[in-house]
């Protein structure tokens, strides 16, 4: 059950990586920091609403309000980052964009760590729902938190899938991702599509941050190495599923969650970070386009 819960979080983060990669062909290194921002904002909002006391579970609506608030704030952050840092470099070599993304990532981490923001102390997320064991199926305990987390993630993914494959904006996104120049010639406002993608990806990352904070309430300081690893694993999920492929990212996320937790349970819990990267190297060697990705020949 843990595998499904953690995997769906990876999937939510991986979606942001994969959508941006699909459209702009670059790895948005700052994406995992938006996820961290989401987790910390959820904490800040929960505390601001006065739910710090242990045991006092707020009504469900308040929890949803926190989730939506964090998603909106991170969506705005994503929009701002794209507008200020990435848009000026739209035609620059990829290496420069990559370095900028790392710069943005460092900026978010270290500004978040200043004492006017979240500080350098780890904090404890107030528990928003009562974590009880709902049922035991074949020896597997089903926790309410896991079920709520996986359910929210699944719901968001269904919404995203509908958005991308059933709406006008989604069609525009797919067109831009297919061929930016031609899409622009067909009258699609590429800048708007890119902005929309960033807002969408960032708010999904914020949702993942919220769910993560619910499941693992001990929040590390924003620049802590655990966050970096989480973001990296989500990226690996996107690569495994086939980068640029939205459904692949969902599949890859759940797969990574399972691999990690089964490896930790049956092989050695101390090496859990190593399994994921071994899988990454294997996939890069054997099938660089990922499970659901199409092999694309480099254009000359």
């Amino acid at each position, binding site marked *: 059950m843990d595998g499904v819960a953690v995997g769906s979080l990876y999937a939510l983060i991986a979606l942001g990586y994969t959508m941006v990669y699909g459209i702009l062909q670059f790895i948005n290194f700052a994406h995992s920091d938006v996820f961290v921002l989401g987790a910390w904002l959820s904490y800040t909002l929960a505390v601001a609403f006065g739910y710090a006391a242990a045991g006092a579970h707020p009504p469900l609506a308040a929890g949803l309000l926190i989730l939506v608030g964090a998603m909106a704030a991170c969506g705005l952050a994503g929009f701002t980052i794209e507008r200020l*840092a990435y848009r000026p470099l739209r035609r*620059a070599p990829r290496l420069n964009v990559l*370095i900028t993304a790392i710069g943005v990532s*460092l*900026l978010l981490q270290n*500004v978040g760590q200043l004492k006017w923001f979240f500080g350098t102390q780890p904090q404890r997320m107030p528990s928003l729902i009562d974590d009880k064991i709902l049922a035991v199926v074949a020896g597997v305990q089903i926790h309410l938190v896991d079920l709520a987390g996986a359910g929210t993630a699944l719901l968001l993914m269904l919404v995203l899938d509908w958005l991308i494959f059933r709406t006008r904006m989604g069609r525009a996104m797919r067109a831009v991702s297919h061929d930016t120049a031609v899409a622009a010639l067909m009258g699609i406002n590429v800048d708007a599509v890119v902005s929309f993608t960033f807002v969408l990806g960032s708010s999904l990352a914020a949702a993942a941050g919220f769910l993560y904070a619910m499941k693992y309430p001990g929040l590390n300081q924003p620049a802590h190495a655990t966050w*970096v690893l989480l973001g990296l694993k989500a990226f690996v999920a996107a*690569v495994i599923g086939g980068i640029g492929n939205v459904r692949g990212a969902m599949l890859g996320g759940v797969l990574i969650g399972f691999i990690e937790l089964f490896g930790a349970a049956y092989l050695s819990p*101390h090496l859990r970070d190593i399994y994921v990267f071994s899988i990454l190297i294997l996939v890069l060697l054997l099938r660089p386009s990922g499970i659901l990705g199409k092999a694309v020949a480099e254009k000359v």
Partner: protein
Amino acid sequence: MIRSAAPVAAGFAIAVLLQLAAGSVVGPFAVKLLMDIGINVVLAVSLNLVNGFTGQFSIGHAGFMAVGGYVAGCITYYGSFLLWGGASVRPGLLSGGTLLFLGACLVGSLVASGAGFLVGLPSLRLRGDYLAIVTLGFGEILRVMLQRTGDVLTDPASVKGAAATTLATSLGGSLGFSGLPYYTNLLWVYVFVTVTLVVALRLKFSSYGRAFLSIRENEIAAEAVGVNTTRLKVRAFVLAAAFAGLAGGLFAHEVGVSLNPRELGFQKSFDIVIMVVLGGMGSVSGAVLAAIVLTLLPEALRSFSEFRMPIYALALILMMILRPQGLLGLREVWELPWLRRRSAGGGTETA
């Protein structure tokens, strides 16, 4: 060979001079800073081979430094125990201890280059973005593995009795490898700085270096004119890893340093990347200047230390938007327009 002889001799002479004079003239703190600068110069110049010359993107350079540092540290520490029964420094210019230290640094550098080969081989076949991820992942995996090593053995009897594999895995874990003898001094730091600089500069202006640069400018075109891009990328990577390993060996044996996995995490890698990017992608002297400035700056701004990283990050973003090739770009300091007379053949500058 002959063309390198003069700069090598000059560099070694400077190293000897520094070693003899600096301690009494500027005091121990400045000596430590000078050593830090030297080590950072080696790191920045070597990363420049990959990120600047070849246009690939590695953000796991501290990982190779850690490999070199830990291997070298393990050899000198346990080697001293096995040879002399204790890990204290054996003084003297060419004493057994110094020779052991130099040998350990070279072995560390070799092992680091081997690690570079292993990491580079799969990822360099693919595009640069993947390399960035794999190198970052490599650094983090290494950190996790180092944190899981056992305590350092401290008494001679247990070292003598232990198997080689036990010694190789008793590296202090997350507390760090403490008790290493302080063999690093200005002489050896600047000898290795000289070697690094001469190799990097000679490489840049050789046909090899041009091939590296051609990959950076346009990989497809480079391949079309017969450059074996994969092989060259791996070579640049291995060479850079070797020098990073060397720097790690120097770092491990420096006074006042704790060789621990956290110190050599991705934060350190980013520090080195920032030196390369600010100094100029492909400029050896630019990397040297950036290494000097960025080593001294935190000391000067100690009271604002919490703003150091935000400012670096902002500088990185602004630099990419306003001057993407870095301060010096591909040029060396002595090639700057306002430094040289109007000579006919200018313009190695490329965008």
